[in-house]
């Protein structure tokens, strides 16, 4: 038998997949023809999966330059009657927010689905925003799965629903769906392939104040119909228990935690349960039925009290005397868990907790002081380490000319280079959003007297770095903007971008160069350096910082992870460095304290290099004041 894959047309077969693969599979089953995305954890594997099978399925998949463009690509396909989707992490939806707020007015022709991958506990994000509120603002209905299987089924249905109501749908995933694993039962793959047709019709495609006023009531009508329909969707389910005092309303993934909690407590038949798969709009009829049948209700949902607010409103409007709990019992911060839900339900039902949780907490607390601190760090041989070092040395030199205790400021950005905010580098002073480094630098330039050296990566430059660069030129901001160009979107899994010369589907593309763009934008100082030539890189940085007016340095070197991988493929030897113990001054520690390379370690008081980790980048040899670090003889 041929091995099953994510694109096998094998209805009924079971496949073990990552949640994001399940989401991609749902779209494949629905016959999606256009998929666009910008990488971001925990969403990236959705487009990666689709791009990998796109050709065979006669589908088009792209990594767009940013989320706004990705959404517009999908929207355009929908306008032409094609099933399309855009996927992004939660903060990516902020970038797509502008077209999104009018997309609700427009509705959809070809099924249109926006996947928002939220990240409770901000495992790999700068915040834990709850995108159900964005959906609320834009009149966009939300589908939220409780498991990997449901993620697949719901995603497939999302396109059907979108066409049934001629309206855009949001599919909201969270880290524990997208990065969960589970077995799914495959469905049939739709084989229909439509031909795009652009029918000119200003009444719903051209938004002037007139069309906004014409289309808003139409949007409200569509939304009202959806509001009725959600009561009968299989994703919302009410199970009333005879004589139950307590009812639980469990949204999305919280439903899985609630099922386990009730089982753990052994009270499945004593508590009524409403599963919510559409937090917006809520299935009002089901909510009323539950509220009228119990004395108390617990809303189990992650992050903000979104369902809670709406359930409370429904109770108020219908004068239902019921006590509603939510964020008074479960946290607004972070993820829920079986344990958290179990404790809340145990408390409300006066059941005995199945475990002495206090003892486990005590154990964890006692153990904590023993544990080493293990933050993520730049990889051994990472070129960002060298770029950061050059920036710091150069800007400190210049800062001295500004005055005795003037410190340079390093506005930073989102990407691997941000890992240098930890000791020993501590080379990042602000991190807010993609492109934020250059934007913040613009503002600082007008209020602070100090060298301002901002940095971002190549993918981030194309995504959101160009407008603030132009702004610096136009508004005469005296800042240095460093583009750390490692030929990848490394942090999110090495996806290609406009600077890499190939596309998501593996086709060759024009390779854009940040230095050409900077020059074209009117920057007068533009230089390209190899960060591993530390002396030259530092000198160039210094010149850039001293340049009166905006300056750009492109610090270019392939990501070490990719380089190592390619070397291994080519069977090229990786020659590590070693510390010559005769020359090394044990008390010095300069290499470790300046660079923090994970391959530089202390063993019985001596500084040594872990040859299994060292990539042979030679950076430490360049900073060692005793010339004690040398290349291992091959």
């Amino acid at each position: 038998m041929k091995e099953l894959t994510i694109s096998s047309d094998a209805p009924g077969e079971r496949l073990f997949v990552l949640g994001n693969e399940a989401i991609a599979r749902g779209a494949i089953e629905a016959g999606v023809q256009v998929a666009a995305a910008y990488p971001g954890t925990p969403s990236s594997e959705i487009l990666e999966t689709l791009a990998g099978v796109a050709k065979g399925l006669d589908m088009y998949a792209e990594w767009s330059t940013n989320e706004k463009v990705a959404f517009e690509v999908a929207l355009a396909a929908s306008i032409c009657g094609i099933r399309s989707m855009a996927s992004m992490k939660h903060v990516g939806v902020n970038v797509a927010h502008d077209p999104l707020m009018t997309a609700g007015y427009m509705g959809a022709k070809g099924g249109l689905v926006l996947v928002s991958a939220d990240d409770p506990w901000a495992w790999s994000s700068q915040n834990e925003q709850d995108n159900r509120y964005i959906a609320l603002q834009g009149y966009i209905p939300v589908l939220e799965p409780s498991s990997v299987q449901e993620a697949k089924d719901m995603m497939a249905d999302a396109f059907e629903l979108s066409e049934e109501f001629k309206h855009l749908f949001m599919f909201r995933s969270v880290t524990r769906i997208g990065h969960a694993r589970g077995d799914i039962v495959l469905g049939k793959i739709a084989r229909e392939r439509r031909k795009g047709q652009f029918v000119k019709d200003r009444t719903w495609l051209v938004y002037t104040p007139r069309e906004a006023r014409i289309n808003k009531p139409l949007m409200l009508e569509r939304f009202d119909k959806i509001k009725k329909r959600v009561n009968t969707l299989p994703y919302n389910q009410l199970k009333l228990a005879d004589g139950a005092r307590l009812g639980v309303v469990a949204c999305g993934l919280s439903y899985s935690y609630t099922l386990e909690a009730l089982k753990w407590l052994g009270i499945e038949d004593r508590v009524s349960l409403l599963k919510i798969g559409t937090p917006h709009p809520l299935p009002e009829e089901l909510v009323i039925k539950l509220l009228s049948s119990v004395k108390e209700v617990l809303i189990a949902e992650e992050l903000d009290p979104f369902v809670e607010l709406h359930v409370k409103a429904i109770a108020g409007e219908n004068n239902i005397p019921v006590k509603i709990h939510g964020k008074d019992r479960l946290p607004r911060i972070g993820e829920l868990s079986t344990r958290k839900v179990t404790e809340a339900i145990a408390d409300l039902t006066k059941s005995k907790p199945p475990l002495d949780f206090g003892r486990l907490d005590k154990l964890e607390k006692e153990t904590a002081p023993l544990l080493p601190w293990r933050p993520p760090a730049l990889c051994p041989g990472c070129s960002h380490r060298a770029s950061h070092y050059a920036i710091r040395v150069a800007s400190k030199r210049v800062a001295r000319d500004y005055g005795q205790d003037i410190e340079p400021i390093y506005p930073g950005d989102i990407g691997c280079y941000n890992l240098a905010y930890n000791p020993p580098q501590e080379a990042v002073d602000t991190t807010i959003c993609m492109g934020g480094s250059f934007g913040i630098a613009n503002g600082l330039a007008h209020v602070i007297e100090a060298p301002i050296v901002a940095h971002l990566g190549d993918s981030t430059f194309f995504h959101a770095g160009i407008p603030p660069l132009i702004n610096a030129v136009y508004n005469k901001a005296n800042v240095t903007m460093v583009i750390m160009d490692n030929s990848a979107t490394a942090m999110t899994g090495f996806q290609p971008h406009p600077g890499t010369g190939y596309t998501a589907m593996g086709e060759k593309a024009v390779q854009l160069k940040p230095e050409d763009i900077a020059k074209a934008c009117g920057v007068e100082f533009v230089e390209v350096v190899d960060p591993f030539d530390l002396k030259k890189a530092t000198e160039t940085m210094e010149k850039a910082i001293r340049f009166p007016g905006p300056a750009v340095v492109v610090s270019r070197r392939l990501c070490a992870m990719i380089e190592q991988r390619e070397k291994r493929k080519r069977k090229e030897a990786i020659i590590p460095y070693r510390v010559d113990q005769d020359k090394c001054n044990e008390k010095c520690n300069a290499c470790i304290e300046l660079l923090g390379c994970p391959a530089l370690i202390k063993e019985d008081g001596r500084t040594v290099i872990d040859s299994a980790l060292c990539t042979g980048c030679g950076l430490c040899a360049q900073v060692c004041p005793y010339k004690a670090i040398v290349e291992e003889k091959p």
Partner: protein
Amino acid sequence: MTKEFNVLITGVGGQGVILMSELLGKSAVKEGLKVRGSEILGMAVRGGSVTSAIRIGKDVYGPLIPTGKCTALVGMEPSEALRNISFLSKSSLVIVNTAATIPFTVSLGESTYPDMEQVLEKLGKAAGRIVELDATKIAQEAGSRLTANIVMLGALFGAEQLPIKTAAIKETIEERFPSKAAPTNIKAFDLGYQACRQALK
């Protein structure tokens, strides 16, 4: 069908923790079992802590193992096993690789690494049984230090508690690795299996 069997795999970025859970999950599905699981990726990969859960059984719904409900903890690194102590109970089995990966914060003097006896004592107290082995050394015996994760997977099967047949996981390993690397990985698996049997005698 098994009601609930929870495996927690812990380690450091680059140790192959995710691959272990993939192999386990795939094998369980082959055996007709229901599987759930979850992992932490993203910021945690660049040398940070990594954990991955694989849950097998008909009573399993959520992707995460509830505190105190871990059936078997497989620790690729001692301090990372200790970090997850609150998942253990008196009926848990712990299999721990004694080869430490010292984070760079220790070289910098920003934190300290616990001594092995302390780690083992704490884990031993919290769990039912504990098996220690130097998986990195065994992996070298098998032919590549990169197979330490497969050694540990072998050890997990060596405990003979899992509801998955050894033949099924071996088949998955063979499918996963190119034919050249497969024998080394199977050898690593077998050595881990035996080491665990030996330790439990």
